[in-house]
Structure formats: structure tokens, C-alpha cells
């Protein structure tokens, strides 16, 4: 992009580069300032950059606004790992009015209302009230009247740090350019859209982020010294620190806002008879008490909304009644600087070639290098997952249905047994159906009936409009009913359909899907008989302890929040193993990583940790109560970048494995061999409930785990 700008579009190149030079230098400065304080606990007011993600740009020549119209690149869905470059202009619109801008507040009171009644004044006022009920000092409010200007939005940063920068410059600051440059503006627009498309294709790999690891920002509980020492190497394109500079004083009051650092953007619109959004307002509000109200009088809103909708970290809600779009911004923050050492060693998913290469003549892995080979392949799955076409073959191994050292003859025998046993269950089910006996059975059938028809119906395998889809839904139901017979006393638990549906869709075989499902429910899920809720509660214990060990800042926040440690906000994560938090494909990647049991038997808990680490700071900053916390984490659904979450989760596994001690409730996270072989971490039992302190700090090497707890 830089090259494109440099070559083809002199005028605008000057504009944007100039702008970014100013921005970049300011970012760097503020970054250093912030880093030096980053040892403070998250949430402390001091740590927040007082400058609120806003910067002013000086007097730069801008292209003639009369010629540029709103323009958005067509397809912008970005993967967080795709390498973005600076300066991609994604949107621009001339004659956008900055109606009011209200600065940070401490004390005092005045009415926080814009002075000019615009096309939709009540909406803007309402939104201001909604956003912050704080009182604002007169001085900080800049009554700008209605200043027309040129608004453009650019992308900045690479990998997980990508963000949108909203720039606005008053027309008065714009120096008219010659006609020749105007034509090149279009070139810029086209070039940037081309570029975007190419990013999309490069749905990226994490490897590219790895070399940057030393400069990733550190979590607040780390030593301030270590974090500030790393800051010098970080560039402005990195996340987590890029808050910026306020436009306190320039003559033309240009505005540049890092939208990734904002809290909410609301777009209010009016429509004409044909439903086009012809005019309206955009209210940008920061996490502190800053607001900007931009007024659009002549179109451009549709493209703007389209751009925001396409941006991964913007959670979109439309309220048609009040003609309003709300975008809540959840920019993920890298919180762990040290990545898993295996990161980057494996480059791609488990392929047919790798997989077939495993098996020797008898369909078994040669004994001599079995352990090593299996471990290598499992590592591939742990880091990158399984190629979709291989899933039906690999999953039974991952879930423990087949052993890696089995021969093909042994597996064939197992398959026959599975079939026989499953068909016996089939017969039993048909009998139960006919006799209609037992209330539990009737209730189970009813609930399953309700749920199967609404599970994954957008998946091609279950699409409702085809006969086949309906048949597959029927199979889903039969498997679940058979499972009820197979495990009497457990009963149907909501969420089971969510786990089973992808298994059946990949296996395309009810018998194998059934037995894999059995393993899955046994192994990773939290399904327990309904009359025994205690066990669910109990299963949260390791997670609590893990938070305490790996994210002490978040743990102490939860501890100080009423019911915070109930961890109700992660129940859905655990129940259906993140199926509702990620898209279908992303979910399967999470599942496969969990099923490998590579490095840990409870990878899903580390995924929980990663999500809390990446987004939890926002919760701490705002001192959310448990209600707000539940809403907050719920809203993150489908906005979280999978690769970032998984990379961080793997990093936390590594951090756990290299820590000095671990609480004994965490013993189950690792296989027994781990504790026997390693000298660190050692298990500590001092805080075990009901145990005397005498067992404190005993080493596993001398005592079996069970004896300790």
C-alpha cells in the first residue's frame, strides 16, 4: 500500500503519510509513557492514558473534498492474523459536520448537550446521556457549532493490533489541490480495496506473529520493570498500548480517533421513501467521557455501517425502531508475552500425507518410533487442527475410541462390537417408544425433540429444506435417545445436541458418532445428573485456582466482586466447549486442540484463561459487577479471534508448566507422569480444604498425588 501511495498518488500520499508520521510519533511517545506505568494494577485510573485514544493532526493539505464521495472497500472481513498495512483508506466522505466534541471530565456540571439542533438532535442527546451519565465541565466542552470537514477512516497496525483510525479535518484546513491529484484519489480507493481482498486470502498463520513476541505488551501483574524494558522495541503497529494524543490545541482542530480504543459507536439515521439512509449522526464515545458527534447530511451512512459491520472487533446491534446501529468495540489485547515454545515449529494442519505416513503394514504404527511419531502428529493437531476431510478418521483416535498402537484388525473387531452394541440400543429404544413407559423417558423424548430441530440447522448436513437434512436430524435424535438408554440416570442435558451435531456431521455414521459422543461427554463436558448440581460447582474449582495462579489480577478483581467467583459467565464456555463463542470452523479447531490432550488434559480451561486475559482488563477497568460481567462476556460471542485466543491459551499452558508451584486442585490438569517427571511446578497442598497444614509443599516425587489430596 505504501508503495502504491508513493507511486501513484502524490497528493494524498502526502496527506496520509504526513498524518501518520505525526500519529506515529505521538503513539510512540504516549506508549512509552504508558508502559512506564503499566506495572500498576489494571483498572487503576492512572494507568489509563489520559489522552483517550485521540490525537490531533496538524495542518495538512487535504484533497479537495468536493470530489471525493463516500467509498468503502467491498469485502472487508478481516482475519486478525492477516497482515494489515498502514494507510489503507477504507472509507471517506466529504462535508461531514463535527457537531460537538466533549472532552474528559472530572468535576463540575453543565448540560452535556450539543448546541445545534441537527437532523436528529434528540437521538444524539439521548445517546450522550445513555453513554455516560457523568457531569461535564464547561471548559472541556468545545462548542464547535457545525463545522464541515472531510472524514476518512483508515486501517492501521498488523496482526492482532489492527485497528480503525477515524480522521476528520475541517474544510478550512484543507488546501485545494490541483485537478491532477483529484483523479488519483480514485486510484487510491481502488488500490486499497484490491489490497484488502488480497489480505483476505491470506487468512493468516500465527507464525508471523511469533517473532514479535518479545515486544508484546505484558499483563498488568507482571513486574513493571520487565514490561517497560520491552517497550522500547515495540512499534506503533502493536496493540494494547496504542492510545494516543488529544487534539488539545491546533488551529484547525483536526481529529484523529483510534476507534479500537473507543467504547461504543452509535449511528443514527433517517431514511427516505426507498429506505436509503440519507442522513444522520455518528456518535463516537470513548471509555472515559469523550464524545464526538459527526453529522452526515448527504448519504454515506450505509457504507459506513457496512464498514463497521465487517470489522471483527465491532459487535453490531441494530435497533430499527429507533433507527440506530450500535457498535460495541471489543478490541482484544495480547496479554501474554511468552508464547508456547512449540509455536511456529508446525506450519499447517494435519494432512492426509502426514496421517497416512503414520501407519505401517498391519495398519499400525511401528512400535519402535510409535511414541515419537504419535506425539509429532498430535502436536500438529494441537497447534493447527485436522484437515476437514480427515476428521472422520482422526477424531476417533483423539477421543480415545481407538488406540494409536492398535492394528487395523483390532480396530475392525472394535468396530463390529460397537455396531452390535449400538444396534442393541436401537432395539431397546424402539421398544421403549412403543411401550411409552416411564415419565423420565417421555420427558427426555420431548426435550430432545425440541432441541434437535434447532441445532446447527444452517450446517449443510442438517439444512432443513432438504429431505436429507431432516433425516440427519432424525439420526441425531436417535443417537441421543440411545444414549439415554445407555446411561440411565443421566438424563438429557441441554447442550448435548450441540456437541453431537458436529460429530455426526463429520463422521456421517451414527455408530461411530455415538461412541465418540460417549467419550466426549465422559471426557471433557460438564454433563452430570440434574439432581447433582454440586458436581458442576466442584468442577469450577480447578478453573478458579488456575485463574488465581495465572491471572492474579483478574482473580483478585473477581474476589472483590460479589458472586464474581461463581464464574457464571463461563458456564456456557464449559458446557458446550466454546461452541457458542466461536463460529463452527473455529469451534472445531478449539475442540481438536482440547482432544489432543497434548501438554494438558484440560486445555479448555486454558482457553477460558486466555479469554479472560485478553478481555478481562476491560471488565476490571470498568469495575463491572457480576451482571455486567455476564453481559460483557456474552456479547463477545463470535467476535473473538480464534487464533489469538488459542495462541494465548497455549502460551498459558507453557507458563503453567514452567511455574514453580501449583495448587493441588490443579493436579488433574496434567497427566500423572507430568508430575512425576518434572521438578517444577511442584504441587502444593497447603490450601486444601480439610487438610492440615502439615501437607504443605510436599513434593510429588516422593508422594503419589492421591495421597496428597
Amino acid at each position, binding site marked *: 500500500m505504501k508503495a502504491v501511495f508513493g507511486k501513484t498518488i502524490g497528493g494524498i500520499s502526502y496527506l496520509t503519510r504526513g498524518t501518520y508520521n505525526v500519529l506515529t510519533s505521538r503513539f510512540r511517545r504516549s506508549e512509552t509513557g504508558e508502559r512506564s506505568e503499566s506495572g500498576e494494577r489494571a483498572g487503576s485510573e492512572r494507568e489509563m492514558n489520559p489522552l483517550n485514544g485521540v490525537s490531533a493532526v496538524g495542518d495538512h493539505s487535504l484533497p479537495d473534498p468536493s470530489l471525493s464521495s463516500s467509498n468503502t472497500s467491498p469485502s472487508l472481513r478481516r482475519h486478525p492474523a492477516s497482515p494489515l498495512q498502514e494507510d489503507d483508506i477504507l472509507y471517506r466522505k466529504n462535508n461531514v459536520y463535527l457537531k460537538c466534541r466533549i472532552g474528559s471530565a472530572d468535576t463540575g456540571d453543565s448540560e452535556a448537550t450539543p448546541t445545534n439542533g441537527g437532523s436528529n438532535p434528540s437521538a444524539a442527546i439521548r445517546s450522550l446521556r445513555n453513554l455516560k451519565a457523568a457531569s461535564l465541565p464547561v471548559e472541556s466542552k468545545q462548542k464547535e457549532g457545525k463545522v464541515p470537514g472531510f472524514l476518512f477512516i483508515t486501517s492501521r497496525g498488523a496482526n492482532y493490533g489492527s485497528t480503525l483510525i477515524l480522521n476528520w479535518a475541517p474544510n478550512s484546513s484543507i488546501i485545494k489541490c490541483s485537478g491532477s491529484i483529484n483523479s488519483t484519489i480514485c486510484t487510491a480507493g481502488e488500490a486499497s480495496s484490491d489490497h484488502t481482498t488480497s489480505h483476505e486470502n491470506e487468512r493468516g498463520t500465527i507464525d508471523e506473529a511469533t517473532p514479535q513476541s518479545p515486544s508484546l505488551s505484558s499483563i498488568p501483574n507482571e513486574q513493571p520493570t520487565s514490561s517497560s524494558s520491552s517497550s522500547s522495541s515495540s512499534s506503533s503497529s502493536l496493540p494494547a498500548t496504542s492510545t494516543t494524543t488529544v487534539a488539545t490545541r491546533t488551529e484547525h482542530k483536526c481529529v484523529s480517533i483510534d476507534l479500537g480504543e473507543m467504547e461504543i459507536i452509535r449511528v443514527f439515521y433517517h431514511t427516505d421513501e426507498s429506505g436509503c439512509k440519507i442522513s444522520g449522526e455518528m456518535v463516537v464515545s470513548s471509555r472515559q467521557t469523550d464524545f464526538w458527534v459527526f453529522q452526515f447530511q448527504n448519504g454515506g451512512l450505509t457504507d459506513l455501517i457496512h464498514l463497521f459491520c465487517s470489522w471483527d472487533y465491532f459487535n453490531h446491534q441494530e435497533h430499527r425502531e*429507533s433507527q440506530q446501529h450500535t457498535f460495541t468495540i471489543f478490541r482484544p489485547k495480547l496479554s501474554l508475552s511468552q508464547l508456547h515454545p512449540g509455536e511456529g515449529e508446525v506450519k499447517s494442519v494435519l494432512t492426509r500425507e502426514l496421517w497416512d505416513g503414520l501407519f505401517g503394514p498391519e495398519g499400525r504404527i511401528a512400535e519402535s518410533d510409535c511414541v515419537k511419531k504419535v506425539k509429532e502428529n498430535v502436536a500438529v493437531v494441537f497447534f493447527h487442527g485436522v484437515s476437514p476431510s480427515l476428521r472422520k478418521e482422526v477424531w476417533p483416535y483423539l477421543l480415545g475410541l481407538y488406540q494409536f498402537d492398535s492394528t487395523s484388525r483390532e480396530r475392525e473387531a472394535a468396530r463390529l462390537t460397537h455396531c452390535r452394541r449400538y444396534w442393541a440400543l436401537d432395539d431397546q429404544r424402539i421398544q421403549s417408544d412403543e411401550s411409552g413407559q416411564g415419565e423420565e423417558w417421555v420427558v427426555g423424548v420431548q426435550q430432545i425433540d425440541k*432441541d434437535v430441530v434447532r441445532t446447527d440447522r444452517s450446517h449443510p448436513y442438517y439444512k432443513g429444506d432438504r429431505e436429507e437434512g431432516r433425516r440427519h436430524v432424525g439420526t441425531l435424535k436417535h443417537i441421543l435417545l440411545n444414549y439415554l438408554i445407555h446411561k440411565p440416570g443421566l438424563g438429557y442435558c441441554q447442550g448435548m445436541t450441540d456437541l453431537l451435531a458436529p460429530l455426526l456431521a463429520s463422521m456421517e455414521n451414527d455408530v461411530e458418532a455415538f461412541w465418540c459422543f460417549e467419550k466426549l461427554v465422559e471426557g471433557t463436558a460438564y454433563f452430570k445428573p440434574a439432581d447433582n448440581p454440586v458436581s458442576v460447582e466442584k468442577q469450577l474449582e480447578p478453573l478458579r485456582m488456575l485463574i488465581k495462579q495465572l491471572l492474579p489480577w483478574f482473580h483478585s478483581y473477581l474476589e472483590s466482586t460479589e458472586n464474581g467467583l461463581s464464574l457464571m459467565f463461563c458456564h456456557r464456555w464449559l458446557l458446550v466447549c466454546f461452541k*457458542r463463542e466461536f463460529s463452527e470452523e473455529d469451534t472445531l479447531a478449539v475442540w481438536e486442540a482440547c482432544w489432543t490432550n497434548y501438554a494438558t488434559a484440560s486445555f479448555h480451561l486454558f482457553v477460558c484463561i486466555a479469554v479472560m486475559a485478553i478481555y478481562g482488563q476491560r471488565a476490571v477497568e470498568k469495575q463491572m459487577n457480576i451482571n455486567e460481567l455476564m453481559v460483557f462476556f456474552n456479547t463477545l460471542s463470535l467476535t473473538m479471534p480464534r487464533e489469538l485466543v488459542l495462541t494465548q491459551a497455549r502460551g498459558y499452558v507453557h507458563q503453567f508448566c514452567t511455574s514453580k508451584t501449583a495448587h493441588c486442585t490443579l493436579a488433574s490438569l496434567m497427566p500423572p507422569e507430568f508430575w512425576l517427571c518434572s521438578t517444577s511446578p511442584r504441587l502444593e497442598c497447603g490450601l486444601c480444604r480439610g487438610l492440615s497444614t502439615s501437607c504443605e509443599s510436599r513434593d510429588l516425587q516422593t508422594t503419589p498425588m492421591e495421597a496428597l489430596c
Partner: protein
Amino acid sequence: MAAQGKKEHLYKILVIGDLGTGKTSIIKRYVHQFFSPHYRATIGVDFALKVLNWDNSTTIRLQLWDIAGQERFGNMTRVYYKEAVGAFVVFDVTRLSTFEAVQMWKADLDNKVLLPNGKAIPAVLLANKCDLASEGFLGNINQLDDYCREKGFHAWFETSAKENIGIEEAARSLVAKILENDETIDHPQPDGDGIRVGEEDGRAPKKTKCC
């Protein structure tokens, strides 16, 4: 704050009832004016926000807590109920068992959350899927008046998320009750409430006005 004009309220409303009674559908209809027969089963809890311009001086934001129909966490769901000021209890007119479960849900509600003055939070009963009522079990639906009075429901409505029947009215009724409660709690009677809380041992009072 410049609140000379409008009053703003944020109310937490619970939507509870058996699995598959249409809680999510009711909420989607109410908030997004949209119906689909294939909403996924709710796991845990989901949220929706409805903004009401109640009158010229009042804006009300209803935070709707769409709670999973299958209750599996026992006492832990107390956290979901915390600070709620109103509730919809939903049943499916085509399935008697969901109606029988209404009492259980109401008891659970009153057990887990109370207004600051110790009274039960207002609850409105929704007889959902009334577009399918021909196959319904409710022979004489008027008996529901008595039922509501007996069980302490503020009101009941026949609803259909599919045909958009009754939902707006039900919400208005609940909000009106919440506003009424809000005023009495803001200006509490010095005596009455306090005594009753003591008497009832922290439990819900016998009855609120019905219908």
C-alpha cells in the same frame, strides 16, 4: 447531569419457563420484530435490550435475561436472578407439562430474588403459542385469572411470537407495574413494608394485585 428533561430507567427482566416454550422467540419478536422457527436452544443465559420511549419524559431500557429452559445449576442460578425487577414466566399452551412447571418456576423466582422492599418481583404469565391453541390443553382459559391470583402473578397474556400477538401488551403491563413499584420503593412508606418483611421471614408476601 442535564436530566431536567428525561428520566432514564434500566430494568433487568427475567424470562423463564420450560425448555422449548418460546422464550427466545418472544424476545426476538419483541426486540427485533422477527420470528424464526429455528432459534438455537439457549445455553446458560442470553441477553437482549429493548428501549422504550415510555412517555415524553421517560425512557426505559429493558435488559431481558433469556434464561435456559433446562435448569441444571440449582442454586447457582441465583446469580442470574439478582437485582431483577420483573419477570415473564412462559409456558406452551400445547404442552400441559410446561404449564405444570409454571408453579415451580414462580416458586424458584420468589425464592431467589425479592425487591428491595422484600416483596416478590412482579411476574407476568405468558401463555405462548396461542396461534396453536386449537391443539391446546386449556379448555377454559378464563380460569387463568384465578390461577394468577392464587400464584401471585401480576397478570397473564396469551401470546404468539409467530403471529406477534400479546407481547407488546404483556410488556407494557409488566413495565407499568415495575414503574409503580419503583415509585413506592423510592418513597417508601415508613412502616408497612418493614413490618411485613419481618413477618414473612423474608419470603414473598401473599399476593399482589392481580390483573
